[in-house]
């Protein structure tokens, strides 16, 4: 092997080891024996993994309930986001006019609004309408993050589909909505899947809105509130906290490794504008 190819490979290996260490450390702590947590020197490779912490966190703490709540909130916000995102993205891609573009751009500006600012009026409004501390309130709040990004990610995807398909259908008498439903959506399934997944992940990971809107009702906590709170709420070991963290993070990490190609499109969607 040439020196020219070995050196970057080696450097990359070292960099990867450094930046991935925190993830490794989470997993090691999660499966460590309780005594290993306080071991000096620390145990870097678990030789006798123990899954007791997973058992405790899943069955002796409200973790399953938090997971359920997160799934419901993320499911609701993803469903709403996809319906609106498909229509808005299609409008931007095929029926763009000055008004539509202005709407699309202004939606992007939502990225500038601090969550801690937006959550104040949302808290007040949700309280007024009796939605405060319900899963619906969190799902709606998450939509302020997911809708803008979904519109732009889907626009980029629809742009990659040739308009000739719909033009042919138009001559056959299909309405634009019919063409969207019967021609564009079926060939966009990968893009729709990636967008939905991304929206789901954004909602699953969200903390500031959830914590503010749901904190007063522990039975409605999501996983992120749970993890952030178990450090203080319960007398708990780092084993359990890292086990809970792993349960929340590992599915997302797997999805990322599996679908990175599609998700990176979303990461940079709207950024090009």
């Amino acid at each position, binding site marked *: *092997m040439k020196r020219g*190819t070995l050196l*970057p*490979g080696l*450097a*990359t290996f070292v960099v990867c080891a450094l*930046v*991935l260490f*925190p*993830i490794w*450390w*989470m997993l090691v702590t999660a499966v460590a024996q309780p005594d290993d947590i*306080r071991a000096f020197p*620390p145990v870097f490779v678990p030789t006798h993994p123990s899954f007791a912490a997973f058992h405790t966190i899943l069955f002796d703490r409200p973790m399953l309930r938090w997971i359920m709540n997160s799934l419901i909130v993320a499911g609701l916000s993803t469903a709403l986001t996809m319906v*609106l*995102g498909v*229509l808005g993205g299609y*409008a931007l891609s*095929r*029926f763009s*006019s000055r008004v*539509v573009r202005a709407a*699309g751009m202004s939606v992007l500006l939502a*990225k*500038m*609004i*601090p*969550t*801690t*600012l*937006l*959550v*104040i*009026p949302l*808290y007040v*409004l949700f309280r*007024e309408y009796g939605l405060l501390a319900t899963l619906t309130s969190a799902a709606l709040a998450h939509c*302020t993050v997911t*809708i*803008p990004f979904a519109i732009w990610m889907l626009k980029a995807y629809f742009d990659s589909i040739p308009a000739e398909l719909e033009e042919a259908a*138009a*001559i056959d*008498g299909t*309405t634009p909505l019919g063409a969207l439903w019967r021609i564009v959506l079926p060939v966009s399934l990968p893009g729709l899947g990636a967008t939905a997944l991304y929206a789901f992940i954004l909602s*699953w*990971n969200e*903390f500031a809105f959830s914590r*503010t809107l749901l904190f007063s009702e522990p039975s409605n906590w999501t996983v992120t509130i749970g*993890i*952030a709170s178990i*450090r203080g709420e319960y007398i708990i070991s780092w084993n359990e*906290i*890292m086990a809970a963290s792993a349960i*929340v993070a590992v599915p*997302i990490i797997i999805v990322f*490794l599996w679908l*990175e190609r599609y998700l990176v499109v979303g*990461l*940079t969607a709207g*950024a090009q504008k």
Partner: protein
Amino acid sequence: MAVAARSGWRLWRPSARGWLGVLLMGPSAIVVAFLIIYPLACALDLSFQKIRITRVGAARLPFTLDNYSRALASDDFWNAALVSLGFVILVTLGCFIVGVGCALLVNQRFPGRRIARLLVALPWAVPEVVAATIWAWMFDGSFGVINWMLLKLGLVNAPVAWLSQPHEAFAVCTIALIWSGYPFVAVMALAGLQAIPGELYEAAQMDGARAWQRFRHVTLPALRPVCAIALVLVVLRVVRDFATVFVITGGGPVGATRSLAVYTYEQAFSFYNIGYAAAVGLITLALCAAFSGMVVRKTVAP
């Protein structure tokens, strides 16, 4: 059938297209108006009232600029602004050094490059709250792995109580923010690097440019537009961050990590100064908008 065909066709005509677009965008626009624009207007309205959370729902209080003048005269506000500025400078710098460095690295040709590209961006997939929790554990004052490493290397003589000292806590938050922020820069920079035509490098090499000169005169200028976008998004992310700092330190100790976002939250939901918090949040938003506008104008019209 003929009628249906004709009416369907008519909808596709240019005269109808504009309306169709507006119609399709309509639902999103309405929801965004209800969930973002109307609430923002409410926040603006609240910021002009001396209002506490218990008073919400009661009659509107008289118009006042008191919240803004109080913020601008408050030491806590300026401290928060300074903390946010510190985070923005250090975290942005860190994200760009690590991110662009990683992108340059995995842009080289070597076996396993595809996997390396995946792994280098992996911290992005870790939820912020989880990332913050992991860093809090690694920097734990008694059993944290970082303390062990530093002791082992002989850099410190006794375990450091990272999270209960101002500068140390600030450093921990900075590191956590860089760790979750750099993958975005890496992905953007890598996309920018791949868009540079190889001929440019060949031409530079023919002209006798050394490696550093090629980097300085070919790579950097080509990355400029991508980096400008990344810069805006990274800065916005740091200013708006709440989860990382709140989970690691809660804004403490003695306000050393209390950024504008944490300060806004604290004022609103710990002290119930709703009007004041809205004013602080809106000042933050104005700063974000001014910064983004400045960078975008500089890069769009060079």
